[in-house]
């Protein structure tokens, strides 16, 4: 199926989203809540594009719009730039306290605004919630609605299902989720976790429940070794080196 993105003719698969096709064609569409592994969430609306289907023109979120016909897409019209500037302005107003947002605020030449909370970092992209879901913990979700909406554990208490993996903090574009690490303990979402130590280098690298969780997910088909990612890589490289090519 032939689609045109910013004048570039590309071959798209049926049902593929505009964003996916654009990424493949090397066309960049700005977005704040898209990660390839998670698929489109349609949360941030930064990826809005103009779709021309026959005579009809309309604005859609490219991360969730499936391609079903031969369409013409514009990704950077003045109208779209205005939409993006608005989104960044409003997000900055809500959560100005990250380099990520400060940079975008300048890049998009946004008008001056009075910020709501100078200390706030969260831009409500929901990537942390999605990551928690994908890990299989379902410990956090968005609570409340409207301007009071925020990411939290139920009742703002330590969640029994949180394994302290830190995937939420890792994926957060603005560093809004705090992880405290000291003396072999990791604290996140009101909960403290014992950490496991690497057998080789002795560094703390993960929480104990994460190890258990991984074992469960892999039906115990995992080595009993306690290795941090970098020592694991070295060991694997050493193992592979034994297979010499003759």
């Amino acid at each position, binding site marked *: 199926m032939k689609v045109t993105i910013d004048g570039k003719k590309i071959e798209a698969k049926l049902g593929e989203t505009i964003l996916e096709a654009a990424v493949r064609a090397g066309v960049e569409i700005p977005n704040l809540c898209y990660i390839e592994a998670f698929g489109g969430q349609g949360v941030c609306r930064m990826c809005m594009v103009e779709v021309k289907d026959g005579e009809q023109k309309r604005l859609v979120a490219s991360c969730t719009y499936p391609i079903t016909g031969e369409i013409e897409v514009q990704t950077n019209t003045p109208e779209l730039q205005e939409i993006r500037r608005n989104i960044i302005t409003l997000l900055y107003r809500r959560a100005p306290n990250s380099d990520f947002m400060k940079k975008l605020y300048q890049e998009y030449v946004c008008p001056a605004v009075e910020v709501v909370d100078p200390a706030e970092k969260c831009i409500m992209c929901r990537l942390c919630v999605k990551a928690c879901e994908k890990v299989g913990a*379902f410990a956090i979700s968005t609570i*409340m609605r409207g301007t009071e909406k925020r990411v939290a554990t*139920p009742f703002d208490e330590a*969640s029994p299902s949180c394994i302290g993996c830190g995937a939420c903090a890792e994926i957060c574009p603005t560093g809004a989720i705090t992880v405290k690490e000291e003396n072999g303990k990791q604290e996140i979402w009101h909960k403290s976790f014992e950490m496991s130590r690497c057998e080789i280098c002795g560094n703390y690298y993960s929480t104990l429940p994460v190890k258990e969780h991984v074992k469960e997910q892999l039906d115990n088909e995992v080595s009993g070794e306690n290795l941090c990612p970098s020592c694991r890589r070295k060991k694997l490289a050493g193992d592979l080196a034994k297979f010499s090519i003759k």
Partner: protein
Amino acid sequence: MAVNSEQTADRKAMGKIINRYPPERRYILAIMQDLQKQFNYLPKDALQMTAEYVNTPMSVVYSMATFYKAFSLVPKGRVVLKTCDGTACHIKGSNIIIDEIYKTLGIRPGETTADGDFSLETVNCLGACALAPVLVANDRVYPKVTPASLREIIEENRGRRDESTERE
């Protein structure tokens, strides 16, 4: 002891409500509506039981419970006063009614009296603008409220609560 037996009675009542529905995710809202009706709020235990029953993460249930205005996570009064603060009622002096409620009961919108008799909420329109300013106490509608009639309404509803507890 007394607290414990009360708790088990509550849990039994919760279980009864929850078990009326098939254990499927799509019944969460219906279950929560019934729980809210029975307890005037959603007790933590009840949410946990619901989550387990429909085999859905607690975070998802909690997200829904906090999303809808119809649910409360703290106990609401036995009588919920809803004053309309829509355009028509506002012009007809709903703010005077809200002030008057604060003077007599000491509660502002979103609050509940210490004795658990009354809660106050404002709503944006009840669709009865000709009757402005309107006040609804549980399901009873009071038209063209004045500070004087408000006192009567409050007394009338205090009595109403007594009737219902006597009947039990």
